[in-house]
C-alpha cells in the first residue's frame, strides 16, 4: 500500500510537469494575444513593444522560457508574476482560492445529499409518481446549462432584479471569515445552480446502481435472515450501490476546485475560474500556467484520494 501511494505520488509530479509543458506549448503555438502588445498602451510603438517583450523575457526561445519558469517553480515555489496585475501569481491564486473552494464544496454537499436521497427513494419505488417526476426533473436539470440556469434563477429570485426577491444575487459573495451568515446566504443560489445537474446525474446513477444491487443474492440473504427492509436498503443495498458514486464525486469535485468558470462569472464570485478566464483573454501566461497547474493538481490529487479510499470502501480491492 505504501509503495503504491509513493508510486502514485511520483506519477502526480510527472503528470504536473507534463501539463505545464503542454500549456506552454499551446500558448506559443496558438497565442491568444500578444502580452507585450496588450501592455503597450493605446498607441504602441514598435520599440516599446520590443522593450516590453524583452522585459517579459518573451524574446527568448520558448524552451528557455519554460526552463526558467520551471527553475523558479521547483527551486523557489515561485509561479512568476502576472503580466496583467504585476503581482505574484501565487498570491493572486491563494486570495481567490477560498471563494472557489466554498462554491465547489458547498455544491458538492448539496448534490451528494440530494442525489443520494432522491436516487434511493426512486430505486426502491421505481415507476412510482415520485420516481417519475424526479427522473423527469433530473433530465431537465442535466440538460440545462449552468449559466442559463444561473441567469434564470437570478432573474427569478435575486433581491436586486428578481421577480420573487428572496435571495442575494450576483456579486453578493463575502469571505467566510468576514461574515459567515452573508457568506452562506450569498452562496445559496450559486450552490443550487452548480449542484443541480450533478445532483440529477448522481440521483440517476444511484437509482440504477441500487436497483441492480437490490436484486443481488446477498440482498436476498439479508432478507432471508430476517433483516428489516429499511436496514436491508441502508446497510446492505446503499453500501454497495454508493461505491461508484464515490469515485465519480472525487473526480467531479477535483474538476470544480480547478475553477467553476461559468457559475463564478454569472454570480460574479471572485474565484479561480474568473481568474483563469481573464488571464486567457489577457494573454497572461504565468497566470494561465498557475491556474491550469492548480486545476490539474486538484484533479490528480482527488483521483489519488479516490483510488486509495477505494481500498477502504471495498475490502476486495488491495493495491500492491
Amino acid at each position, binding site marked *: 500500500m505504501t509503495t503504491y501511494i509513493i508510486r502514485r505520488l511520483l506519477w502526480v509530479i510527472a503528470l504536473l510537469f507534463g501539463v505545464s509543458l503542454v500549456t506552454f506549448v499551446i500558448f506559443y503555438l496558438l497565442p491568444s494575444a500578444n502580452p507585450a502588445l496588450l501592455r503597450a498602451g493605446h498607441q504602441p510603438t514598435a520599440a516599446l513593444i520590443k522593450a516590453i517583450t524583452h522585459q517579459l523575457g518573451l524574446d527568448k526561445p520558448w524552451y528557455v522560457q519554460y526552463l526558467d519558469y520551471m527553475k523558479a517553480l521547483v527551486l523557489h515555489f515561485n509561479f512568476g508574476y502576472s503580466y496583467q496585475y504585476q503581482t505574484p501569481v501565487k498570491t493572486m491564486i491563494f486570495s481567490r482560492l477560498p471563494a472557489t473552494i466554498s462554491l465547489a464544496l458547498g455544491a458538492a454537499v448539496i448534490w451528494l445529499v440530494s442525489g443520494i436521497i432522491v436516487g434511493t427513494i426512486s430505486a426502491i419505488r421505481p415507476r412510482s409518481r415520485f420516481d417519475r417526476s424526479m427522473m423527469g426533473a433530473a433530465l431537465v436539470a442535466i440538460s440545462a446549462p449552468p449559466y442559463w440556469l444561473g441567469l434564470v434563477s437570478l432573474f427569478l429570485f435575486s433581491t436586486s432584479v428578481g421577480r420573487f426577491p428572496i435571495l442575494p444575487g450576483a456579486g453578493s459573495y463575502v469571505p467566510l471569515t468576514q461574515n459567515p451568515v452573508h457568506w452562506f446566504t450569498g452562496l445559496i443560489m450559486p450552490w443550487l445552480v452548480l449542484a443541480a445537474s450533478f445532483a440529477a446525474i448522481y440521483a440517476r446513477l444511484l437509482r440504477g446502481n441500487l436497483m441492480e444491487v437490490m436484486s443481488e443474492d446477498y440482498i436476498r440473504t439479508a432478507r432471508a435472515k430476517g433483516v428489516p427492509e429499511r436496514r436491508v436498503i441502508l446497510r446492505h443495498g446503499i453500501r454497495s450501490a454508493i461505491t461508484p458514486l464515490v469515485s465519480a464525486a472525487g473526480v467531479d469535485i477535483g474538476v470544480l476546485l480547478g475553477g467553476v468558470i461559468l457559475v463564478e462569472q454569472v454570480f460574479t464570485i471572485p474565484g479561480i475560474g474568473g481568474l483563469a478566464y481573464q488571464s486567457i483573454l489577457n494573454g497572461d501566461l504565468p497566470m494561465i500556467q498557475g491556474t491550469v497547474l492548480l486545476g490539474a493538481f486538484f484533479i490528480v490529487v482527488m483521483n489519488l484520494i479516490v483510488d486509495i479510499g477505494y481500498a477502504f470502501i471495498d475490502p*476486495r480491492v488491495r493495491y500492491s
Partner: protein
Amino acid sequence: MSARESLLEVDNLKVEFHTDDGVVYAVDGVSYSIRPGTTLGIVGESGSGKSVSALTTLGLTRGKRTRVSGRILFEGRDLLTLPDDELREIRGDDIAMIFQDPLSSLHPFYKVGYQLMEAVLMHRSVSKAAARDRAIDLLELVGIPDPHRRVDSYPHEFSGGMRQRAMIAMALANEPKLLIADEPTTALDVTVQAQILALLEDLQQRLGMAVIIITHDLGVVAEIADEIAVMYAGRIIEHASSERIFATPQHPYTWGLLKSIPRLDTPRSEDLVPISGRPPSLINRPSGCHFHPRCPYVRDGHKRVDPKLEPVPGEFGHEVACLLPAPLRKQIWQGLQAGRTPDELRRLVDDKPAPEAVAAAQPADEAGA
C-alpha cells in the same frame, strides 16, 4: 398426514408473476408437507418452480406483480397471510435458508463475522460481544478451522466450501426448526459437495431440524432425503419416499432424471440417456400433460388431457401425475433398467391399432421385459 404432526404444510400453492411478457405460472398448485426432523428433497430442472415455492414460504417473492394463492401452514400459522413484519420475525429464526452460490450470497463488503452477528442480533437481544462469541461458535460448528481468526475474514478470503459453511452457520444462528437449502452444493466442487451434504446431515441429526433440499440433481438427495418430490413446469409430478423414487419411479421425467445420473454400478457399455428438449416456457405452457413435448412415450390423448397427481396402485404414499397406465409404466421402467433405450421402448406405447383404443387395450409385449 395431518396438520398437527407436520411442521410445514403447503397446500395448493400457486405463484404467478405478472411480467411485461405475460403471466409466468411459476408454481401451479403444489402441495407437500414436512414433519419435524425429516428431510424432503424437491427435485427438478431450472425453471420448474422449485426455488420459487421455497422463496414464497419465506415471503421473499412478495411484490406488486406477484399473485400467490393457497396456504403455507407453519406450526398452524398461514405464512401467506402473515403481515410482513411478523413473517420477518420467522425468517432466519424458525425458518432459515441457504442458497446456491455462496459467494454472491454473502455481502462482499462485510466481514463474515459481522454477517453472522447480524443474523443473531436480528432475533435475539444480546450484546454484540455475545453475538460475536456465538458467531465464532457457529463457525466452529460448521467446521471452519481457526474460527477466532476467521470471524474477521471477508467472504472473498474464504474458499467456496468455506463460504457455504459460513452460509450454513448463518442459517443455523438461531437454531431454526426448518432449514431450506436451495441448491446448496451446485456451485461447489464435487468433493466439497459431499462434505457439505455430510455436514448438513450431521447438523440435522444434532439439532433435530427439518430440512428441505432443493436440487436439480437426484444424486444429491439420494442419501439424505426421506421423501422426494419431483417438480416439472411448476407442479409436483411425482412424490414418494426416497426408496420408492429410486426403486419404482413412475414418471417418464423421473426416469429421465435417474437415467441421466452417472452411476458406478451400471455397466460401462451403457450410455447416459439425456432428456431431450428444453424446459417449457412457463408463460405459454404446453397443452395437456406439460411434459408431453419431451416425453418419449407420448400418446395423442396426452396432448389434450392434463394429468392429476394420483396415488400409484399398491404403493403407499407414492403419487404420480402420468397418463400412461400403471402396468405399462412398470413395463417401461423394467425395460429401461434392462438397458433398453427409450426409442426401443417407445414401441410398447405405439404398438396399438388406434390411439383412441389405448386406454382399454392391454400392452402388447412382443419383446418381453
